[in-house]
């Protein structure tokens, strides 16, 4: 077929098709990196193809995996990890690390840990982020709070939120705190307390068979939301990232949880000064750190040795400090190679945006436990739906434990169905 260009360059250049879901402002950055790579590697041609959202891309990949339509590199979100491994259609990156005797120690441990299963690195972390607490420094000042002392515990959070909540008549002009109804934040809030999501060490030691997120750690999170919502200091931002950010930027909320990736444009576009801090923990609980989020790059089994090698070259290129520095500065995602943080580009950027460093620090301070390694289950997307539903039920006045139990039960059901 005329537009299928695989053959055309095959004899001269190795073509590496790279499916991604980097839309919006991310796409130009990704394309620039790919371009630079192609310029510097005359025998390889990486072709980035946007495939819609992670879900859409995965849907399509499911249908073509193992055929010649399949890409050589595929970007998949973190919760798809188990799915990819189980599919049997991928080549663990470890294979090439071993072949190439590549030194992975230069990679960020806390990131790589997530994608390491049974001691093997399955995919190459690419765009990684963690949640952080973001707050409106101006609002802090106005409420008589110290903008340099953001709340670190639940009680501090509640306290600050109360002060930050401003009402005029019945209407609330400014809410204290908000958090997206999105499973990821819930997972993080458990992990930071050292809680697990599923049994068998978050599914790392053996296939998970049961959800455990409805334990005390989960309950604490839900109770926090319930309490604050009851107090009128919590703003229900729904499921839409942009709605929440819009609310923050419009001064509707003073503090909220967001991905570290969006930081820079948020700081740029907010008409007030923005502060960034660690995830709060319940009082008296030791901070364990955060689980990595985002997506990683997978190598396909169906591709030829040559293509795989080329893909590996690309992956190596991407992890080089200079590329990572650029990636970090331009997108806000972490650098997989911490050496990048020493690049002048980053140094300069951090000077301008000291907030960026907070997220990196939070990641570095993370303790390597099963909790912060992240859960490994296939039915993650579906489980998240149930958690979201449970979160939404909180606003309807459902008891936190009850809502959590329901979500856990549903998760167990699908876990069993697939085992």
């Amino acid at each position, binding site marked *: *077929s005329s537009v299928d260009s695989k053959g055309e360059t095959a004899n001269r250049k190795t073509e590496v098709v790279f499916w991604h879901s980097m*839309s*919006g402002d991310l796409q130009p950055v990704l394309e620039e990196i790919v371009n630079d790579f192609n310029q510097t590697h005359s025998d390889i041609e990486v072709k980035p193809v946007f495939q819609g959202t992670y879900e859409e891309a995965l849907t399509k990949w499911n249908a073509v995996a193992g*055929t010649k339509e399949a890409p050589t590199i595929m970007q998949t979100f973190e919760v798809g990890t188990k799915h990819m491994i189980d599919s049997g259609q991928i080549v663990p990156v470890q294979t090439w690390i071993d072949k190439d005797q590549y030194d992975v120690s230069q990679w960020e441990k806390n990131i790589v840990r997530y994608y390491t299963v049974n001691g093997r690195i399955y995919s190459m972390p690419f765009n990684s982020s963690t949640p952080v607490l973001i707050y409106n420094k101006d609002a802090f000042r106005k409420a008589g709070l110290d903008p340099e002392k953001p709340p670190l515990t639940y009680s501090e959070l509640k306290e600050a939120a109360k002060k930050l909540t401003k009402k005029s008549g019945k209407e609330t002009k400014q809410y204290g705190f908000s958090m997206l109804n999105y499973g990821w934040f819930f997972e993080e809030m458990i992990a930071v307390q050292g809680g697990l999501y599923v049994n068998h060490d978050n599914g790392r030691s053996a296939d998970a068979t049961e959800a455990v997120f409805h334990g005390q750690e989960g309950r604490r999170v839900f109770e926090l939301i319930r309490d604050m919502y009851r107090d009128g200091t919590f703003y229900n931002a729904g499921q839409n*990232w942009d709605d929440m950010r819009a609310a923050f930027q419009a001064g509707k909320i003073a503090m909220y949880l967001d991905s570290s*990736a*969006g930081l820079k*444009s*948020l700081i740029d576009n907010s*008409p007030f000064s923005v502060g960034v801090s660690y995830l709060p923990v319940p009082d008296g609980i030791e901070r364990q750190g955060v689980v990595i989020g985002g997506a990683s790059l997978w190598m396909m089994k169906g591709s030829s040795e040559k293509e795989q090698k080329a893909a590996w070259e690309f992956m190596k290129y991407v992890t080089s400090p200079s590329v990572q520095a650029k990636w970090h500065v331009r997108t806000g995602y972490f650098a997989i190679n911490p050496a990048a943080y020493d690049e002048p580009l980053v140094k300069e950027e951090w000077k301008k945006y000291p907030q960026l460093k907070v997220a990196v620090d939070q990641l570095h301070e993370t303790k390597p436990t099963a909790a912060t390694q992240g859960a490994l289950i296939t039915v993650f997307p579906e489980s998240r739906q149930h958690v979201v539903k449970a979160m939404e039920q909180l606003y309807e006045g459902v008891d936190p434990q009850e809502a959590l139990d329901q979500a856990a039960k549903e998760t167990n059901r699908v876990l069993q169905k697939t085992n």
Partner: protein
Amino acid sequence: MKTVRLVAYYGGLCICSALLLFPMVYALLMSFMDKADIFAGRLWPERWEWTNYQAAFEQAPLGSYLLNSLFVASVITIGRLIVSSLAAFAFVFLRFPGRDAWFYICIATMLVPWEATVIPNFLTVQQLGWTNHYFGLTIPFWAMAFGIFLLRQQFRQIPYELYEAARLSGIGNFRFFCRIALPLSKTGLVTLAVYSFLDAWNMYLWPLLVTSDDRVRTVQIGLKQLQTQEMANSWGVVMAAAVVAMLPTLVLLFVGQKQLRKGLMQGAIQ
């Protein structure tokens, strides 16, 4: 009294139009705002900026996407016209056993929820080797129950005597179809064309599935491409792309609306 009523009438019309048009105008205005304006929730841009359009065209190859959309929508439209008119012709002018049964089978296809067929269809197209090809983007949409239905009604407006006169003079079926039936059904064909074009223009999920090459992708994908999840969206840019994506269809609609109404009047319903 008379003028009061007239003013009230046209006033009412204007209000209705304003309400209906508001979302579109809103999108248009937003596409000219910078981020600060948008987050301030303004209605009117403080300063009119073209930068959003610039950004939209830079971030996604909207130009070629537009051309592709144009091409794909046109080919689907033409294909539908041909396939539907052939079938409708048979249903109206030819007498053969089982004709009505076939007609009802065709009509019943309207009831199939499209989402339920996406994956098997994708596999079919893949097996045919039509992925990343205009074939895969267009051919599956050529047959369309609504089109057959509409043109059948249109053809039924043609006096049957014309067909009999043709048979008597030895004008064959196909000749009659080309020379008489089609030219006499212009309104119906235009109606179907406009409807199909709009329909095809607005496809998203299917083109995304069957293509992985920018060179054949359509504008709705471009629209999606400008939105992100984890990162903050540039709403102005997204709105600019939305305006770009809806403009051609609106123009087409403004041009074809009268024909469309006439066609629907003659056919479609009774």
